[in-house]
């Protein structure tokens, strides 16, 4: 077993840990009070382990923990701001989940998507979540929730610019 000192920013805080080179990034962050990120397939198919790494969404089961030395990571626990709030509110209102296992990955991805895209079509929403599986097949409500969140954000922007 080879341990390596690892330091990164997790949800804005500097963290240092002794990481085994065999750990996947999702396993390392789950041991650091950030267990909201889920371990799903470990093949990169399901997207349950999606986090933000240096500003881009990544499947954290496809990253060795030691590769993340020096990186800045945001997990579901650290998502905040207007887009994240709108997404979370809409997911609750629309029941954008059934068992909830895919939810943290979906919320991370939807938040990142809506921070880039103001007025997405349904097709664009479906394309954005193409790498995240809902094994309960609750896609319609998830897609509707992301659409609602987009509209809520547009209204907030309109109010702001109108005021």
């Amino acid at each position: 077993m080879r341990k390596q000192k690892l330091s990164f920013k997790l949800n804005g805080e500097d963290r240092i840990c002794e990481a085994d080179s065999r750990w996947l990034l999702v396993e390392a962050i789950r041991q650091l009070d950030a267990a909201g990120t889920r371990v799903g397939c470990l093949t990169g198919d399901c997207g349950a382990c999606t986090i933000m790494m240096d500003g881009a969404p990544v499947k954290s089961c496809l990253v060795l923990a030691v590769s993340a030395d020096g990186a800045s990571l945001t997990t579901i626990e650290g998502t905040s701001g207007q887009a994240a709030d709108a997404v979370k509110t809409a997911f609750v209102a629309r029941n954008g989940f059934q068992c909830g296992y895919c939810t943290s990955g979906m919320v991370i991805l939807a938040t990142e998507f809506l921070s880039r895209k103001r007025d997405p079509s349904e097709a664009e929403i479906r394309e954005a979540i193409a790498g995240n599986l809902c094994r309960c097949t609750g896609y319609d409500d998830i897609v509707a929730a992301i659409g609602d969140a987009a509209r809520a954000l547009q209204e907030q922007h309109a109010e702001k610019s109108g005021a």
Partner: protein
Amino acid sequence: MISHDFQYEAPESFDIALDLLSSFGSEAAVLGGGTWLVPNMTYGRHRPKVVIDPKNLPLRAITRSGDELVLGSRTSYAQVIDSSSVADGAPLLAKMAQQVTGGPQIVGQGTVGGSACYGNPSSDVPACLVALGARMILRSKDGTRDVPASGFFLAPFVTAKRDDELLSEIRFPITSERASCAYEKLKFSTGSWPIVTANCIATTSVGSGLHLKIAVGGANETPVAYEVVTDTDPSEAELSNIAQRSAPLIEREWADEFAGSGYRRSVAPAIVRRALREALGRDRV
């Protein structure tokens, strides 16, 4: 957690990386984007003694060098899609990257060079590189080799890259401004691997007709490519004939659980025809 013990190295220089590759040979694995290597280690299908993470090496740049577009081997599909240099210099590459499946995460994590070195017959990348006439730049302690993409893919999951070599760059001749290109593929669901891919670059030259460069992926164990010169405005029947020429080139057909023996060879001409029609700006049928 990955079950087997291995050494992780993130070398600070090419010299150190190439020393490691020279010492460990086939027992070393180089991380591209991790989308293949990491899950295969997780599932115990690949058990390298050392994993070389080139994250500290400058392998992610897209630059224009004279008449060539130079892509660092760890350039992601997302970088390719966002690059104006790629859009201008090798638009087919961008079209291919736009059709990579797996969601924005895989598009951001997967790399062109990683896919090339994996050499999966079903990948989007190999035939596209062949169509574009790419050159693979391979570095080792012995020096640098320059292998054309057409000679890089030797067999399923086998490439011309030696165990002591690192793919550092992929170089593309700049596609003519007069050319139009298309990338079409057959897949059975939104997120599935391609069954057959077809790349087409169509160039019209005054006095010499229409030059078509076609490369088919997924159908054979390695990409197959051919070139055709025809009238500037070929008939539909002529396009069908040109597309049909792909079938006999598929001598070592790739078959797997998605499409058994005979299937890919049968459908390849239809996908090639779609690419030809798309490149010539004809309406979809």
